[in-house]
């Protein structure tokens, strides 16, 4: 059971809210040493894996242009556009984004969304503005909740859309793994069997988004009544 000591370190570290970078590093060192590596070998293993996973950092390349546009008023403009639609609500904004994100991901167009390039500059400001227009002032706690929902909509739509596309990484991984075990499966079959879950995800999360609107309406009516 010695290898599991790293998992314990991670759980304790996250519960105690110690800086996650430090927690992860300590967990890695402990795990490595428990499995018989010496310290320098662990450091080298860290270096190697960090370098090979640099592709996750490429998304930061969008920050200069996103920052420039935000400075020029992109987020404010996104708010103004939403306030032009009388019928817009936070839940409708998020439902529309969820549907588009899930369908485009299913077609393999996973790069049409993302937290840095879509959620922060466009979707979250629109979702916030819809509630501001409808219910008046939005207190910070509620604002943060709307933002968290914007990020969640992106994640959930992506995860349960992309697996319907046959050339996505997870399908290729499943196929490769089963082939090593002497089982041949068709990517199209795997993609097909992702559809029932995709439909459940859509129904479950969209229901939650509709309920979110009710709870926002009640919450903001209360908050603004207290003030008046």
């Amino acid at each position, binding site marked *: *059971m010695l290898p599991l000591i790293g998992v314990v370190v991670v759980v304790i570290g996250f519960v105690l809210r110690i800086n*996650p*970078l430090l927690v*992860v*590093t300590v967990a890695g060192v402990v*795990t*490595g040493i428990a499995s018989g590596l010496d310290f320098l070998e662990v*450091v080298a*293993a*860290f*270096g*190697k*894996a*960090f*370098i090979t*996973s*640099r*592709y*996750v*950092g490429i*998304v930061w*390349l969008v*920050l200069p*242009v996103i*920052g*420039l546009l935000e*400075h*020029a*008023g*992109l987020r404010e*403009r996104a708010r103004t556009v939403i306030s032009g639609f009388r019928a817009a609500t936070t839940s409708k904004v998020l439902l529309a984004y969820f549907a588009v994100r899930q369908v485009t991901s299913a077609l393999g167009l*996973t*790069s*049409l*969304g*993302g*937290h840095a*390039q*879509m959620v*922060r500059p*466009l979707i*979250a400001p629109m979702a916030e503005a819809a509630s501001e227009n409808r219910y008046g002032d939005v207190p910070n706690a509620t604002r*943060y*909740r709307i*933002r*968290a929902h914007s*990020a*969640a909509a992106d994640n959930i739509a992506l*995860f349960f859309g992309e*697996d319907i596309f046959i050339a996505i990484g*997870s399908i290729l991984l*499943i196929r490769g793994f089963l082939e090593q075990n002497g*089982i041949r*499966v068709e990517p199209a*079959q*795997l993609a097909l069997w*992702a559809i029932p879950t995709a439909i*459940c*995800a859509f129904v479950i*999360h969209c229901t939650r988004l509709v309920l979110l609107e009710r709870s926002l309406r009640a919450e903001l009516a209360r908050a603004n009544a207290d003030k008046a």
Partner: protein
Amino acid sequence: MITLEHVYWLTGLMAGGVAIVNLRDASNPRRANNTAFWGLYAITFLAGSYLPDLVSGFLVIGMVLVASIRGLGQGKFKATREDEAASAARWGNKLFIPALTIPILTVLGTFAFKRIEIAGAPIVDVKQVTVISLAIATLVALTVGMLMLRPPLLAPIKEARRLLDAIGWAAVLPQMLAALGALFALAGVGTAVSGLATRWLPLGTPFAAVMTYGLGMAVFTMIMGNAFAAFPVMTAGIGLPLIVQRFGGDPTIMSAIGMLSGFCGTLMTPMAANFNIVPTALLELPDENAVIKVQIPTALLLLGANILLMNFFVFR
């Protein structure tokens, strides 16, 4: 040919620029830490492919120490929402043009670059076409934005620095977790967990096996931060020997829904930092678990749905 390496250089140059802007900003009380942090990060992108693993490892340890001892800070920025609103009124919907250039060109590039060849050789590395398209789309969008808005020449890097400092250490957490996952794999964490599961959990009936497999995928993904790491272990440990061989289940249906059960776990764990922690930094949320908290109800309901779907279809 344009390869991933060139995109890394570009990212490294940006991180290096962020380090330099921080160095020159006296309004940030921790500017030395920020400079060191983004400077080291820049080196991993610029030179990472050529450095020995041990040197890269010490660069990483250096970043961790800089970020956790006294921590990173942020400079002061004077732009207000009123300034942004005034500028927004001036530019109107034109502001969306560069923003939407990024996703649209990325998608177009993903298709086009696979077909464009010069003298029989593709102009980009076809295996990495999506990220290379993203990088090129970003450069085009930046050019369009610069021509349109005509800001000072250094404005983009200063803006990048504002956003990257707001994200802070969370920006490198996904890579640290990938490194931890590699060490977990090396140490045999996977076999230890599936050993525990097969020893202690009831697996005598088909439904019990399906439930253990589905829950196992989710829990294991939460530990490793990644369903891809959980899938081989759980499928070799429980899926193939029990669901397929003993109870005669269909491996295609089991694997497809099993992977998606793992994705339910991804929604509930801080270990999947690029999906769950980075957005809280990007959206400036005070609670770093805010996104996870919102996702948990959907994840649990969907995990239940997955287990029922698998039980219903896998033994047809």
